[in-house]
């Protein structure tokens, strides 16, 4: 499989359950090593780099099930990212904290900076997760189901935040189940099915692609079609 993410893009990666999205995501983020093939980032082969090194190169990620540092304050959570994950050299602690406060305001958590992360609601945790990743000043941001479990209103807010991060020049790859969100925001969509790229293109072309429709809805023809793998 080959997936190319260009600078400045906002790419949505979708596919039915078991399509291999999460596996692909983890390979890019450095959690798994691929059996074959390479991950190339800005012309550099990073296949063998550990996650922290990828982060320092400018490749940040969020987790589907949020993993906040529960024993730390909200500001501390984000400061950690701003301090340790910063692309290029390590900033001073003061500078990192300023950057963290700035990012917290951008995701609408400014008022919660002194709260313990364990006291946050789900929606707030999702935004904290995002803020931590953004604070590392990534050139590429990997978002793993960032709106899963949010109410409709929260989904809308989150989409606005992501749009503004993208507008500030960050390339974004998002894996997403909530179609309304991913279709509404992505520039380009790639559909995975059974470990392979099934289709790609703008949200509108993908949604009207008959292969995609049958992969999602299933159909009488899909029953007869000789699909790969079982």
């Amino acid at each position, binding site marked *: 499989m080959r997936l190319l993410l260009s600078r400045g893009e906002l790419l949505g990666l979708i596919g039915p359950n078991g399509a291999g999205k999460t596996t692909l995501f983890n390979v890019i983020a450095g959690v798994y090593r691929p059996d074959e093939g390479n991950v190339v980032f800005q012309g550099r082969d990073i296949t063998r780099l550990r996650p922290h090194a990828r982060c320092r190169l400018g490749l940040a990620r969020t987790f589907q*099930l949020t993993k906040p540092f529960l024993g730390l304050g909200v500001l501390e959570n984000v400061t950690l990212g701003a301090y340790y994950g910063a692309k290029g050299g390590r900033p001073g602690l003061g500078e990192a904290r300023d950057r963290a406060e700035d990012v917290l305001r951008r995701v609408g958590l400014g008022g919660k900076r002194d709260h313990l992360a364990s006291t946050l609601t789900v929606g707030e945790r999702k935004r904290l997760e995002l803020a931590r990743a953004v604070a590392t000043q990534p050139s590429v941001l990997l978002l793993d*189901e960032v709106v*899963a*479990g949010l109410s409709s209103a929260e*989904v809308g807010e989150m989409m606005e935040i992501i749009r503004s991060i993208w507008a500030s020049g960050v390339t974004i790859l998002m894996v997403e189940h909530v*179609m309304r969100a991913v279709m509404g925001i992505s520039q380009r969509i790639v559909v995975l099915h059974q470990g392979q790229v099934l289709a790609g293109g703008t949200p509108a072309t993908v949604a009207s692609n008959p292969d995609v429709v049958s992969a999602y809805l299933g159909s009488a023809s*899909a029953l007869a079609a000789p699909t790969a793998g079982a």
Partner: protein
Amino acid sequence: MLDVRGLDVLYGDVQVVWDLSFTVDAGEIVTLLGANGAGKSTTLKTISGLLRPRRGHILFDGVSLETVPPDRIVGMGVLQVPEGRRLWPGMTVLENLRLGAYPKGARGEEGASLEAVFSLFPVLAERRGQLAGTLSGGEQQMLAIGRALMARPRLLMLDEPSLGLAPKVIERIFEVIQDVSRRGVTVLLVEQNAHLALSVANRAYILETGHLVRAGAGSELLADADVRRAYLGV
């Protein structure tokens, strides 16, 4: 038979089901549809007692299930075939099936149930001594269904039975589901493959990010724009 009212469920600390109500009558095949992440599996887990609702009621034959221990819920005849089969990979096919008859009410009829399951899935009889972990995906799904049938279910809940299977196998699984239904078992089916599910279901409910958005008879939903929206967001 099954009456779910105003269910709110949190998974970890993520709310995935919001104010969900639906019913399943005796003898029906009812399906819950929706893209992944819509809250279907969570709903099944809550009915089985693996998760507890934050709010709302689950009534089975008028008995409230929210505080009944999960093994007793199974004893009442509410069986779930979980997503991803969840077999015991280090046990043989026969052992998996025999343990299916673990509920007290089903123990006495273990022999008869076994025969019934083997007649439904002859391949399982052939592979009875093989470890479950070494079966193909389709055989594993058959074993998972067979295991649930060993418990003499009254309500059979299937979570994504078609997941990752070849079309031929899927076809076979859905024939079995209809067969089981004809033998008097009520079926609650969770599926991503909407065409398939709607083709066998009497009624369907459509979930979108944990909310109920549509309910109706199977066939009429197939052509519905809401269904497409729930899955594809357009």
